[in-house]
C-alpha cells in the first residue's frame, strides 16, 4: 500500500530524521524536515503537510508552545514524539491538540500504523449513523449496540462512554478529557469511576475482557478505541 501524502517531521536529531525519511518513504510517504521549531512553523505554512510529526524536545523553543501555535491554524493531525516517562508532557500535548503520541525508542512499523490511523480519522466523514468495529456495531441513530448481531444492553453512562471513545477511534483520549465529557468538571480526579466503567464495558463488548482489543489502555494517559 503506497501513499503520496506529505509528512512534516520536526526533529533536531539527524539520525532520527534520516531513519524516518527511509522508513516513511518505504511506505510511500513524502517527507519534509525541519530541525527547529521556527523552521517547522514555516514549513507547515508553506507545504501544508497531511500530518506533522513533532518532537517535544526542540532546541530553540518548547515543543508544547510550538504545538499550540501550530494548532491556531493547522487542523490536520499532529503526532508527538517524546522520551519515555514524561507522561505529563504527553497528557499536556494530547489535551493541547495532538492527535497521538509515540515514545522513543519506537518501531517504525508502529509509527506508520499511527500515521495511517490519524490520517484516516481526520479524513473520514463522520456522518455515518452506524460505526462498525469487527463484530461490534454502534447505531448512533437508534442508540443500539450489537455484538455478533445480538443487542448488548448498556446503561446510559456506558453508552456515552463507548460512543465517545468509538467516535474518536484510533485516537488517545486522556482520563481528564473523558471524565470531563461524561461526568463533568467536578469529577476530573475520579479516575476510579472511569476504571470501573471501562471494566464493565469490556465485559460486555470484548471477546476476551482480560485481553481487550477495542478498549485499549494507554497506561498513565488514557484510553484508545482500537479497530
Amino acid at each position, binding site marked *: 500500500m503506497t501513499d503520496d501524502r506529505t509528512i512534516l517531521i520536526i526533529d533536531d536529531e539527524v539520525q532520527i530524521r534520516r531513519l524516518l525519511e527511509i522508513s516513511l518513504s518505504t511506505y510511500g510517504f513524502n517527507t519534509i524536515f525541519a530541525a527547529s521549531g521556527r523552521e517547522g512553523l514555516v514549513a507547515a505554512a508553506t507545504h501544508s503537510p497531511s500530518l506533522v510529526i513533532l518532537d517535544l524536545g526542540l532546541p530553540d523553543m518548547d515543543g508544547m508552545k510550538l504545538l499550540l501555535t501550530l494548532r491556531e491554524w493547522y487542523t490536520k493531525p499532529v503526532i508527538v514524539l517524546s522520551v519515555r516517562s514524561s*507522561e505529563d508532557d504527553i497528557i499536556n500535548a494530547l489535551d493541547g491538540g495532538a492527535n497521538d503520541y509515540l515514545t522513543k525508542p519506537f518501531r517504525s512499523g508502529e509509527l506508520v500504523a499511527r500515521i495511517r490511523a490519524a490520517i484516516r480519522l481526520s479524513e473520514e466523514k463522520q456522518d455515518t449513523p452506524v460505526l462498525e468495529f469487527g463484530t461490534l456495531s454502534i447505531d448512533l441513530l437508534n442508540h443500539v449496540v450489537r455484538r455478533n448481531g445480538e443487542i448488548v444492553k448498556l446503561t446510559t453512562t456506558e453508552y456515552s462512554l463507548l460512543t465517545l471513545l468509538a467516535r474518536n477511534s484510533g485516537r488517545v483520549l486522556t482520563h481528564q478529557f473523558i471524565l470531563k465529557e461524561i461526568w463533568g468538571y467536578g469529577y476530573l480526579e475520579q479516575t476510579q469511576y472511569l476504571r470501573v466503567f471501562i471494566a464493565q464495558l469490556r465485559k460486555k463488548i470484548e471477546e476476551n475482557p482480560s485481553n481487550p482489543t477495542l478498549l485499549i489502555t494507554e497506561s498513565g494517559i488514557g484510553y484508545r478505541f482500537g479497530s
Partner: protein
Amino acid sequence: MDGRLTTRVTGLLRNIYPYLIVILIIGLTTLVCLPLSSPQSYHIVSFILLFVVALLAAFLGIGPVLLASTMSAVSWNYFFIPPFHTFHIARTEDRLMFFSFFIIALLNGILTNRIRRQERAVRDRENQTNALFRLTGGLSGARGTEEVIRVAAENFRTSLGAEAQFIIQDGNGHLVYNPDPDDRNTPEKPDRGTAEWVFSNLKKAGRFTPNRPDEPLTYHPLTGAMINPGVVALKIEEDRYRNRDAFWDTCCSHIAGALEREFLGEMATRARVLGESDRFYGTLFNLVSHEFRIPIAAIMGASDTLMYPEASEENRRALYSEILKASARLNHMTENLLSMSRIESGRISLRLDWHDVTDLFQRVTQNLEQELGQFRLVTVIAEEMPLVKIDFGLLEHALINLLLNASQHSPQGSVVKMEALYEKGNLILRVSDKGPGFPGESLPHLFDKFFRVDGSPAGGLGLGLSIVRGIVDVHKGTVSVANLETGGAMFTIAIPSELPDMNHLDLAK
C-alpha cells in the same frame, strides 16, 4: 580604654563595700549599746559585739571580718571599758578580758568565714558536677558535628554562664571560620591569630591566661586522642572562670571527645562512600565494555552482512530479527540504568492513581510477547479484585523485571505464573517460575545492586531486582523471594492500597 577603667573602678567599689558595711554596723551597734555603758553592764556589750562579728563573718570575706574584730574590740575598749572614752584599761582583769575578746572575735570571725567558704566550695563543686553531667548527657545524644557544637554552646550558656564560639577544623588541619552571619546579637568575634596559635600550640590563651591576656575572650584548645577538632573561644566572667582550671579543661575535653567521635564517623562514611562509588564505576565499566558490547556487536555485524546483496531472503530476515533483539536488549539495559539512577538519587516521583490490575497484566504481557514467547505465561487475577492505587508505569517496570528474571532462569516451555490478589489492605503480586530456584546463600543478596548469581546466563546488569525493590520501596511496600518446595522461585510484592471511594458512582445509570 574607658570601659576598662570603669570595670576597675566598679571592682574597687565592690571591694570597699564590705568594709563600709562593717564600719556602719559596728558603729550602729556601739551607738545602740551606749545606754548600757555602765561599770556593771559592759560585759553584756562584749557579748552583743561578739554576736554581731559572728553574724558579719557569715556574710563577708576575711578582710572585713578582721576589720570587724578589730573595730569591735577598739570600740568596746573606748566606749565601754572603764575608764570611758579612753583606750586605757585600768584593771588587769579588764585588760585580760579585752585581749580575750579580741582573740575570740577574731577566731569566731575567721572560723565562721571558713565554714561559709567551705560550704560555698561544696555547692560550687556540686554545680560544676551537675553542669558537667548535663553537658556529657547532651553530647552523647548529639549526632553530627553541628549538633555537638549546638549542644555544647547551649550548655555553656545555660549552666556555665559562658558564651562559647567554636572554630572547628576542616579535617585537613585548617580551622574554618564561619562567615559573619551579620547578626547584631553575635558576641565578639574570636581573634584568628589567637585561635590559630591555640590550635597549633594546644595551649590555653587569652583573658585570665598567661598567653595574650589582653584578648577579651578566653581560648581553649579542643584536644582529642587522635584528632584535635579545633578551638573554643569563651566570653566569661572572671569569678566563673578563675580557679576552676580543672573543670574547664574537663568540659573542653568532653566536647573534644564528642567532636572527635563525629569526625571519625564522618571520615568513615566518606571512605565507605568513596569505596562504593569506586566499586560502582568499576562495575559500570565492566558492564559497558561487556554487556553493552554484545548487542552493539550484533547490530554492527548484522547490518554489515545485510549490505551484501548475496544474502538470502531467509538470512536477511534472521539478521533483521537479530538487530531488533539486540536493540531491544540495549534499550532494556539503558532503561534499567536510568531507573536505577533515578531511584538512587531519590528523583523518582510517584504518580499514584487508581488502576485495574487487568490493565497492568495485559500491558506487561504485551511488552514481553517476544521475550516470553518460549514460555507458558499464566496470569491469575483474584475474583472481586478491587481497583488499586499504584504508579502504573513503575509497577509495570517491576513486573517486567521479575518476569524477565524468571525467564532467564527457567527451562524453555515451562510455566511462568503471574498472580494478583487483594489481602488485608494490600495489593499482592506474585511471580513464580519452575526454574532451579536460587542458591540459599544468594537469597539475602538478590536485591543488591549489581548482584548476579554465580553461573547465571550472560545478558543482565544485575540491576533488575534492585530496581524492583526500589520501586516497591517508593510505594512503601515490601518484596520478598522464596524457593518453592515444588521447585522454582517465587517473588511476592505487597503494596498497601486503600479501597477506592465509589460513593457517587451509579452503575445502573
